[in-house]
């Protein structure tokens, strides 16, 4: 149940968002121009911050969307847990959910979109709306939470979320080498990440210590060795299939098994199916007919 203090913070956030004039929510501004530039006359608001409720035995956590992801991670680490959110320095929980980019460990830990159990957001008319529910399993009604992840705040401004948490792995290891990433994926049971820049593969192993040793042995046979970690991800996210059809002059890093590649430069990408575009327009019209939420941003243009 939502406690009094939490509810009050959400209500004051809703009042601030109001029911008219263009408004955008600011997080850590780490991806502020993703999917377009926020229009100049837009009013800026911040979502409530802070950890609201955390019972480690439930393995769920309720946090204000304005909470920095690093603060969330530190609180979870104390209980030996983690959330499946990318730890972008300076970013907020609401921000990384709105951006919708997976953590680099998505291959093993799962997609960001599956981390969100419940969200309370301010709708275009200023009302507070709850999507989803607090339990780890829930099929009560339509799944609005999935729609909010990666929506760039264009359907509603998220004020508070409940996330699923996971045990932190007992041990972990990054390895790298000049080997075929597909071969790594075939030989290893469940690596949490495989990255590939066209020459070098990076692989992340996590779990029980003895399992990591045996998996690392497999990786060594393919030419990998321990390393500190992968290089930073290039700025733009594109479908990995685009690498096959387009010329990419810059640096790239494929996140194997997730369909994603990060590139430092990109050309034009294939147009989405008109039927998909039409669904986006109809959703926007249903959720924000006046176009006041995060104007100028378009999830379809987010790369």
């Amino acid at each position: 149940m939502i406690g009094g203090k939490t509810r009050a913070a959400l209500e004051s956030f809703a009042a601030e968002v109001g029911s008219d004039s263009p408004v955008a929510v600011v997080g850590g501004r780490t991806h502020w121009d993703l999917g377009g530039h926020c229009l100049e006359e837009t009013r800026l608001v911040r979502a409530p911050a802070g950890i609201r409720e955390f019972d480690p035995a439930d393995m769920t956590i309720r946090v204000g969307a304005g909470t920095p992801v690093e603060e969330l991670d530190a609180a979870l680490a104390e209980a030996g847990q983690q959330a499946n959110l990318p730890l972008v320095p300076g970013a907020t929980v609401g921000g990384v959910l709105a951006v919708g980019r997976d953590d680099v460990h998505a291959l093993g830990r799962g997609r960001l979109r599956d981390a969100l159990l419940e969200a309370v957001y301010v709708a275009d008319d200023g009302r507070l709306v709850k999507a989803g529910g607090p339990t780890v399993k829930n099929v009560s009604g339509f799944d609005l939470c999935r729609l909010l992840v990666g929506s760039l705040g264009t359907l509603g401004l998220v004020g508070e979320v409940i996330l699923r948490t996971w045990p932190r792995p007992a041990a972990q290891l990054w390895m790298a080498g000049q080997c075929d990433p597909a071969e790594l994926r075939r030989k290893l049971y469940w690596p949490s990440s495989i990255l590939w820049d066209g020459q070098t593969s990076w692989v992340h192993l996590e779990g029980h210590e003895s399992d990591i040793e045996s998996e690392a042995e497999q990786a060594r046979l393919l030419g990998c060795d321990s390393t500190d970690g992968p290089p930073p991800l290039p700025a733009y996210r594109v479908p990995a299939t685009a690498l096959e059809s387009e010329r990419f002059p810059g640096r790239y890093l494929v996140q194997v098994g997730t369909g994603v590649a990060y590139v430092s430069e990109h050309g034009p990408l294939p147009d989405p199916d008109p039927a998909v575009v039409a669904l986006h327009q109809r959703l926007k019209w249903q959720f924000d007919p006046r176009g006041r939420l995060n104007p100028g941003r378009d999830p379809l243009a987010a790369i």
Partner: protein
Amino acid sequence: MKLLKASRRDSLLRDLRRVLPPDRVRVAPLERSIMGRDASIFEGGQAGPVCFPISTEEVQGCVDAARRHGRAVVPRGAGTGLAGGAVPLEEPVVVVTTKMNRLLSVDADQAVAWVQPGMINLDLSRALAPYGLHFAPDPSSQQVCSLGGNVGTNAGGPHCLALGVTSAHVLAVEVVLMSGEAVVLGDPDGCAPGLDLRGAYVGSEGMLGITTAIAVRLTPNPPAVQTLLLAFDSVDEAAQTVSAVIADGIVPAAIEMMDKNIIWAVENFVGAGFPLDAAAVVIVEVDGLPGGVAAEADRVAELALERGGRVRRAADDHERALIWKGRKSAFGAIAQIKPNYYLHDTVVPRTRLAEVMSRVYEIVEEHDLQVMNVFHAGDGNLHPLLLYDRREPGTLERVHAAGSAIIEASLAVGGVLSGEHGIGIEKRDFMPLMFSEADLDAQARLRRAFDPDEMANPGKVLPTGASCADVNTLGKIPEGVWG
């Protein structure tokens, strides 16, 4: 209920038979009567023409014909749903996907398969065995339920504890919208630009369109598995152990609980070797690489022993299979006790499991009913089975009253209405207990973005206040539907 005029019915039938051969558009009373029900307790659904398309184009043709005649469309898979989601109201065109049951392609390297919606869940995992892969969601009905239905309800199953329910295993869906257009939502490679339309579609109970193909994510078969059967002298000790396992930072592949009544029924039915002197058993399965599996199995055993449990480890695949046979035969075993049962499906926070279980027993006693519990304890997903004989006057009323009380008790501790069966007709009118008017309005907006005229499976999930549906006919559950 107005009877549709014969001439209107005939012209719809004529149009449908232009799209599908006559033997795949059926109107015989028997056929329509079968399609008027699903596996829920609801009776009284009214099916219009029943269509069996075999391709996306044929589904589009059925939808086009229905639209021209202003008739709603209800998609249907194997009809194993427990919430009445496939029960047709007001003679819609019923589009049955059971003849679209092929495995279209498997890409073992990318761990993706395209399947048609009528394919049976277990058939997919069987077909994938040579690749060392499987489809993780495994509802108890997996021998008969279809993957299209799994997408519709966002189905779960025992092995969804660590790996997530259907939505986490669907990469893309091909959908025929009510406009007749076919569109792919999501991306089989996993990186579709824009909003997660795929995620919004999964679990929409046939109210956004008709699924015609599904790209599923495949899971590698684990190299090591250990299955433990834990027996307890009280349900409370069993529930405390479940909470302790999760609190210890272990997320097993599955944690299932069964209480005394169901243990007896199952033993009598299949002889799975469950201890008859136990008040509850908990099945815990851990899988993965051998080191982690051994460590977690040892820790689970320790936690159970500390709470007064007895521990048996399956020695081999045969014993493991037998334990699971016992778990999955539970529903069949019940028929020995009473002819009818009503299966509930709420979820509570895992730390509140023991408390809600005792409340369930109290509620059942207050309503003078019998209950059996067999459920996904690790998720907090309760499945109390209320047993009854519908021929006994007044029983059904008590069953409904007890059911409502269980729902209220679950919501009171921060739980939700449904964990895996969906809302359908069954819990539609309970939705306002969990959601405000604004919350329901938002869900109705999602629905209208996909289906502006609300022609796909009308009358389900959303209470009428949240939609434009005809208040007079759909404001209450139609008479006779509750059986």
